[in-house]
């Protein structure tokens, strides 16, 4: 479904991604982790063309992302994305946040869009908040709306960039629960996250990045039981012990 082949990217002389290659099959859940600044966000943004890259190739569902002839907007409408800071549109009500792209991009009728929105809000447990504005919700609620918003486009896969790291500790689980459910329903997912509990529960594979390189790309068990690289071991030690 997603295939990356020797993707490299640099800002000036600074190498953000070096020769990153990996494959994601339909239904897989990939967790991407690694130290701050290692290029996780950049990698995941390359998948739907939010960040351009200089060399290599990314194919999503048979379409080459880097190809200048690709209709990126169309590609992106089939890939859901959830951001660290939710990025709901603050001037629209929750239900409008869910409907706007359905109507304007997919061309659904407002009624159809509303029906879809309601069922998704139901699913993330927020039917009651439909008429509110994002600023009136807690962080955890906002992130659940953001997930619902992405799902409203009927994406073929979902990208998550640290979806829980801006949340109060209490609210982390309500978001992880939604994600877990999604994974169990067979959604293809790439998640940048440090929630190792989540990784242990649902990941099929874990990718560990350092300094722009994919250092480990293992099955979950292999990674947690015996990460090969020293860097990954150090990282795990730091992140797990407290």
């Amino acid at each position: 479904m997603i295939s990356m082949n020797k993707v490299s990217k640099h800002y000036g002389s600074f190498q953000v991604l070096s020769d990153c290659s990996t494959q994601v099959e339909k239904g897989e859940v990939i967790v991407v982790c690694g130290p701050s600044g290692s290029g996780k966000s950049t990698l995941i943004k390359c998948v739907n063309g939010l960040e351009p890259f200089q060399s290599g190739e990314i194919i999503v569902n048979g379409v080459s992302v880097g190809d200048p002839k690709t209709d990126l907007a169309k590609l992106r409408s089939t890939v859901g994305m959830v951001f660290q800071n939710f990025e709901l549109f603050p001037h629209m009500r929750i239900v409008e946040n869910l409907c706007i792209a359905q109507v304007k991009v997919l061309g659904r009728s407002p009624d159809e869009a509303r029906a879809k929105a309601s069922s998704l809000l139901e699913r993330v447990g927020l039917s009651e908040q439909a008429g509110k504005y994002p600023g009136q919700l807690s962080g955890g609620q906002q992130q659940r709306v953001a997930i619902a918003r992405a799902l409203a486009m009927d994406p073929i896969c979902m990208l998550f960039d640290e979806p829980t790291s801006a949340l109060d500790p209490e609210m982390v689980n309500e978001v992880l629960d939604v994600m877990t459910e999604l994974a169990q329903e067979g959604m293809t997912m790439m998640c940048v996250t440090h929630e190792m509990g989540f990784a242990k529960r649902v990941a099929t594979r874990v990718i560990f990045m350092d300094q722009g390189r994919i250092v480990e790309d293992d099955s979950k068990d292999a990674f947690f039981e015996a990460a090969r690289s020293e860097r990954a071991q150090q990282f795990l030690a730091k992140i797990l012990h407290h």
Partner: protein
Amino acid sequence: MAYNWNWDVFLQPTATGDDTYLGWMFYGFKMTIALSLSSWLIALAVGAVVGVLRTVPNRGLSGLATAYVEVFRNIPLLVQLFLWYFVMPELLPLAWGDALKQTNPILQQFFAAMLCLALFTSARVAEQVRSGINSLPPGQKNAGLAMGFTLPQTYRFVLLPMAVRLIVPPLTSEFLNIFKNSAVCSTIGLLELAAQGRQLVDYTAQPYESFIAVTLAYLLINVVVMFGMRWLEERVRVPGYIGGK
């Protein structure tokens, strides 16, 4: 201070006999309002376009927009006014220039002043629009694009609605500035409020009354605009957002 206060001066007929001095002031007041409002509408439209262009990834477009802003920001309004009124017709092809000059002079003055004020202000509006867009979290643009919006759609549905709300307060002061700057237009002979005030001094030699009246008129405009913009600010306020309820 040996000064003959004479507030009745406003009720006296003018030297040319066609009106009272109060009527003159009122004419000037209307001229100031008409000039400022029309310039403001143009400035908003042009400024919004230029401001958006300054933030787009296309280098050519954003360079062009930047050049526009720099030119109109870095020449004093007074100089620009003279350039529009006196110099621009000389730079046009002869026939055009002559045709332009034969039109009604009040219209010439009005349009030169309007164009000048509008473009001068549009550069400032463009800067506000740009900073409004840039002050949105960068993730907003990404979020819009990631939903499958095209770049223009992202601006239309995601970035501009919020940016416009954010810049209402700084735009208020630009809006006020346009009224104040319109006072400069008397230098090309346009009979707006400040000019009528000065005429009154010329004709009646009662400077203090005239100054006080003109200053009060500007204060009045200011108060009305401030309340109007504050009302607008309330209207567009987003619930739950910073500064919102």
